[in-house]
């Protein structure tokens, strides 16, 4: 109990934190939101200024973010928070608009059974407010535009490369760009009109659409057809984004010609990682991000017990799941709540260490 007390003291807040939480986080934030829901002291919020139906299952949301938005680089994504039945859920969406503009667009394909994409499609209207995170991601055009570029995409994977294409067009840097996109049919090509228009305007842009429903065409990415279309692909700086099978086949092709170092890729990983449910007896790795340590956890016991066995001293209280003192953010991995039996696989969820058991390798904000 005494050591618990000392640890308790360590995370007690100083006076300035108290004032900030009381006055700024709570009251100032409330009144700012009352005056204008897009304003906030800390959160990046954006007003939806337009909703564009791109295809049957894809919509673009044109957003005007508040002053907290720091801009993005072509190819990056932004986390988007929406509230689904009272619960905030976060998904990352590639930004499809070019950098440097006041308006920011995300283009969202409706995923069957996808909570957030369905919610955005069904409930988000012009004038609504969305919460964003700072733009992130390494899938970006280099500062010096490469002479020869290849943008290779499939389906909704077009969104980040569209931002790149629009950026090149806006900067008039379209020297030699091959844009190869795969879709089921012409009607499924997102940004179809704009692509045609850009190709007509820029002599340096070659637009190739590979459609599944063309007579005698292969489905999806096919090496022979592709090598025919872009014979010099191995010499081009390539940006690849699309469904898993397309990405895998393309990566193998680049590997086979020894050009992998010219290939940049962005994959839209499924929001919920395939649940690797291991019994904790098998042992898992728990990475503590803040202290930059890794702990091997083996055998039975809650995360709290396991961490303590390994010499860690995380903050905690009741040890039975009622006081919430041991709450911490799980950045990735799967845990199971022993009281409710609930399995949590989504990234960035708050978990209670004293009643959670690891079900996969984990990364904790500790």
């Amino acid at each position: 109990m005494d050591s618990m007390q000392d640890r308790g003291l360590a995370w007690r807040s100083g006076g300035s934190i108290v004032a900030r939480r009381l006055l700024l986080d709570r009251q100032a934030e409330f009144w700012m939101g009352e005056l204008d829901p897009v304003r906030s002291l800390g959160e990046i919020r954006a007003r939806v200024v337009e909703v564009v139906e791109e295809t049957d299952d894809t919509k673009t949301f044109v957003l005007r973010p508040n002053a907290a938005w720091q801009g993005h680089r072509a190819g990056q994504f932004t986390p988007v928070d929406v509230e689904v039945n009272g619960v905030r859920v976060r998904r990352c969406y590639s930004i499809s608009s070019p950098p440097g503009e006041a308006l920011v667009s995300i283009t969202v394909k409706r995923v069957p059974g996808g909570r957030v994409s369905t919610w955005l499609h069904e409930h988000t209207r012009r004038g609504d407010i969305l919460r964003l995170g700072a733009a992130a991601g390494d899938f970006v055009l280099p500062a010096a535009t490469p002479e020869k570029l290849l943008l290779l995409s499939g389906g909704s994977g077009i969104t980040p490369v569209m931002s790149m294409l629009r950026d090149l067009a806006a900067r008039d840097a379209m020297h030699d760009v091959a844009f190869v996109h795969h879709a089921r049919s012409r009607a499924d090509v997102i940004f179809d009109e704009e692509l045609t228009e850009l190709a007509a305007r820029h002599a340096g842009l070659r637009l190739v659409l590979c459609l599944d429903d063309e007579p005698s065409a292969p489905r999806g990415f096919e090496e022979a057809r592709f090598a025919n279309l872009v014979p010099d692909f191995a010499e081009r700086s390539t940006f690849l984004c699309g469904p898993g099978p397309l990405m895998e086949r393309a990566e193998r092709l680049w590997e086979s010609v020894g050009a992998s170092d010219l290939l940049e890729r962005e994959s839209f990983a499924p929001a919920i990682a395939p649940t690797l449910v291991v019994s904790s007896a098998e042992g898992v790795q728990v990475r503590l991000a803040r202290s930059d340590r890794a702990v091997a956890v083996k055998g039975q016991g809650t995360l709290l017990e396991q961490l303590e066995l390994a010499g860690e001293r995380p903050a905690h209280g009741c040890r039975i799941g009622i006081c919430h003192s041991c709450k911490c953010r799980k950045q990735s991995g799967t845990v199971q709540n022993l009281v409710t039996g609930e399995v949590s696989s989504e990234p960035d969820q708050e978990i209670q260490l004293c009643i959670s058991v690891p079900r996969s390798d984990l990364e904790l904000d500790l």
Partner: protein
Amino acid sequence: MTTQSKNLTREEADAFGRELDALRQEVIADLGERDVEHIRQIIRTANLSEAAGRVLLHFGFGPVSFVLGTSALGLSKILENMEIGHNIMHGQYDWTRDPALNSQRYEWDNVCTGDDWRHSHNYEHHTFTNILGKDRDIGYGFLRVAPEQPWKPVHLTQPIVATFLALLFQWGVGAHDLRIDELFAGKQTPAQFGKRARPFVTKAGWQLFKDYAFFPALALANAPRVALGNLLANGTRNLWTYAVIFCGHFPEGVRVYTEAETRDESRGQWYVRQLNGSANIEGGRWLHVLTGHLSHQIEHHLFPDIPGARYPEMAPRVREICAHYGQAYNTGSFRHQLSSVIGRVARLSLPGPKPAAKAMRAAPAEAATPLTYRAAA
């Protein structure tokens, strides 16, 4: 109401606990938009009420606007401390993942710091509820509220001490986690005490500055009126929260436990103790909201991290389960519970009575759920 709870064997207590767990699961699965809307509506009401109160105090003149302004400010403080602050800090809305409703970051309009509260209340009081020597909320270390506490001559003064505590309740709450008694008993060094007290002193200074310097100064000539209004609003909130909290744990029929009785307690037995250590107040929707749903103290102690606004609909089910296991469900009108508490505090200022004989808990049986969770293999 004065009927005693039947003593349950460990197996019976665990079966009782399983039924409560099932009820808990059912409500958790149903949490959603209406719960978030409720708390946001109360937050809005509290903020608008505060703004209205301040405008009336700052710019009004005469007694009518003074009384209205003070009442509106007091109402906002009561809502903020009880339904909003207390409940959010319990983690009742953590499932929403809204940072404004996050238990670990919330800071309330009270001299007690959020962090001290989370430790002394959420952890100590809710884990060790009504265990003599472990729950420091039993009479807060200086009042005798149960006959099991040994009588000392100092308890003769407790009707007066309790009255002062009621008027200055937020200061009692704020200083509670500093363990001043341990300083005098030599159980903590002045250095430890100083370290422990620093956040409280900072926050208290901040609160005093806000209520009695900053806002009065803004009101220029109306400064004395504003300072007095703030004082009365804080005092009203103090009296109200004191009354609600004393009615929750100290009326007749609520029992205390010894450490020995609760050794190796199972989750089911923890539930039994929470039930027998709490008492409800009956009333309408607004009474419940103004008490932060602590009028449903029993449901709150059984399910501290379920949104309080759900307690009224859970209560009939809890009562049924209690009846089935022969457990008393201590409830009564506000007047009844309050007079019971006042009578008890007055009676216990004198020596005696002999604690009512209660059968000890049945000896632990094997293969029951231990209180600390073990991972299933």
